């Protein structure tokens, strides 16, 4: 499809509201970002960016297979130091590789809604990752999206390609410094996981109280490929809506989604969808949500299109305040016989019995609540390298989580 076609479709979808989530007024955000200068040496990274990155699990001091840092619309640093792994900013990648067109807006429709359309209408910023056939990352690739300009509309478009038999681990932290209250983050991500490849993608969000967030993610998985997708958001945000979709398009493909949410205000609408399109594919999705005042809509949808597939959904929520709301929507769509699909959903308060158990050991009500909530959020995650597992564990456990009134 020629680029002009994309532009045309984007233009037509400019006012198209999204199917889910509250509507964002794009006009109320700054369209142009001030440029930043590139930084060769990570040691010269501004301290506030480094700290913010650390808070979203991206430690820039430890070993990694590559690093990408984007401040507002500028990729200020990209490095890649692993054989067989390419890590570039997307504009450069599009310039270098003509074939990248075949992956550009091929999974996420450019006219899906006004947000995808908006991203398409501006010069692209984001990262490009490609693992060559058989290449394996020992250390995770780290990327940080930093929204530092108040009231900016930050647009991101990432492409990740895992060629046959490769293995990729990516962690992306998205964050704003505390002085940025208002902002918008639009992020399009397209993942191509080819035959027998494995990708783990871990995203940690830490936004400001007045930031709105609309990621748009699609993942295509071929025969024998697998995905472990992890999402963590434990800090307040004004509105956030995301609904990544994975398509299991070859025999034996596997997708696993985990999300961990903690909200004390605002509106979070997050879910995931898996289309099981080939035999012997399987998917599971676990969502753990805690509300101490915010509204969380936790969706999960599994679509079984052929026989001999397996899918399980788990949406569990804890409400710790009178103001909180958790709306859990697990959906199973079986379209033929011979499927094995199930779900469990539960929303409630902390069990009195568990609280009493810990209080009998000398913990105060607040301490006991904290221990139970932290345990609840500490999701067992498969398919992650040990270092990332520990990073995630640290993040979910270090947060100051308060019990509601």
């Amino acid at each position, binding site marked *: 499809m020629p680029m002009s076609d994309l532009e045309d479709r984007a233009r037509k979808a400019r006012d198209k509201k999204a199917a889910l989530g509250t509507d964002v007024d794009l006009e109320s955000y700054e369209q142009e970002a001030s440029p930043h200068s590139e930084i060769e040496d990570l040691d010269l990274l501004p301290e506030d960016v480094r700290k913010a990155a650390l808070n979203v699990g991206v430690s820039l001091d430890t070993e990694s297979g590559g690093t990408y840092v984007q401040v507002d619309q500028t990729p200020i640093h990209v490095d890649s130091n692993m054989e067989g792994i390419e890590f570039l900013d997307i504009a450069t990648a599009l310039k270098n590789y003509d074939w990248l067109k075949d992956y550009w807006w091929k999974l996420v429709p450019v006219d899906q809604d006004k947000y995808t359309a908006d991203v398409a209408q501006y010069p692209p910023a984001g990262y490009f990752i490609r693992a060559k056939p058989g290449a394996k990352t020992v250390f995770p690739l780290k990327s940080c999206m930093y929204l530092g300009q108040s009231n900016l509309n930050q647009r991101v478009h990432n492409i990740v390609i895992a060629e046959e038999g490769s293995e990729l681990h990516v962690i992306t932290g998205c964050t704003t410094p505390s002085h940025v209250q208002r902002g918008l983050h639009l992020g399009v991500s397209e993942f191509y996981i080819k035959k027998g490849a494995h990708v783990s993608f871990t995203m940690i969000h830490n936004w400001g109280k007045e930031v709105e967030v609309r990621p748009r993610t699609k993942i295509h998985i071929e025969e024998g490929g697998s995905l472990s997708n992890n999402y963590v958001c434990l800090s307040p945000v004004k509105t956030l809506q995301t609904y990544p979709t994975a398509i299991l398009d070859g025999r034996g493909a596997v997708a696993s989604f985990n999300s961990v949410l903690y909200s004390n205000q605002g509106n979070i609408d997050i879910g995931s969808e898996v289309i099981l399109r080939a035999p012997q594919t399987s998917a599971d999705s676990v969502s753990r949500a805690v509300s101490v005042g915010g509204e969380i809509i936790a969706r999960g949808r599994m679509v079984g299109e052929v026989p001999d597939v397996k899918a399980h959904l788990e949406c569990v929520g804890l409400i710790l305040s009178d103001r909180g709301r958790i709306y859990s929507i697990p959906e199973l769509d079986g379209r033929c016989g011979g499927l094995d699909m199930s779900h469990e959903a539960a929303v409630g308060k902390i069990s*009195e019995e568990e609280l009493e158990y810990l209080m009998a050991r000398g913990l105060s009500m607040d301490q006991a609540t904290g221990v139970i909530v932290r*345990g609840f959020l500490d999701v067992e995650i498969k398919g992650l390298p040990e270092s990332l597992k520990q990073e995630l564990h640290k993040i979910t456990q270090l947060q100051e989580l308060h019990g509601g009134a």
Partner: protein
Amino acid sequence: MIGLLEIEDLSVSIGGKRVLKNVNLKVSEGETHALFGPNGCGKTTLLNTIAGIPRYQVDGGRIRFKGEDITDLPMYERAKKGIGIAFQHPPAIRGLKLRDLIKLCNPQADADDLLTEMDLMDFADRDVNRGFSGGEVKRSEMVQLLAQQPDFVMLDEPDSGVDLENIKLIGKAITRITQKDIKPSKRTKSGIIITHFGHILDYMKTDKAHVMIEGTVICSGDPREILDEIKKSGYERCAACLCQI
């Protein structure tokens, strides 16, 4: 000897139902008592009320511990004062590792040592009580109490669902917690144990026993004597006693 725990005319209801009626009981420092009684007579209710679980509503009477009235004290403060309990049906806690809970019971405890002692090393990094067998749950209770080292320990059927081998292990742990392994004059720890079968009593010492029927303690005396009587003729004779008071 000082009455470490003194219960006076205690009446308790749960879910609007009166379960305990004018219970009187005294456990002195260094003593461990056994509490017998048929299912549903209120044994668990008594221990949980002493522990301070808010669902158990005290309608009358009081509980004194170390000379202080603790009837209205919050649960965790009672724990801090030295009251410990092994629950009859402990809950599982998702995401909390047994090793970490031991540290919460007592930051100074050597978790590995205690886990080894209770033959629970393989469970150190598992979620507390999750998927544990009946016997494993009971040993998990003991390992927590070994860490907590309460001055007054309440054991609610620590031997139910436990095989003979492990009853021995649990009995040894109780002996240590209640200081029955040291000279009587040196003992300061006390306890109360609920048991139906009494096997556990082969591996630990009790100083006194009580029988509870329909929410009242109706008889107290030598543990062996009372247990033998119950084994011989059930609780019928005790119930007959109840009619006489």
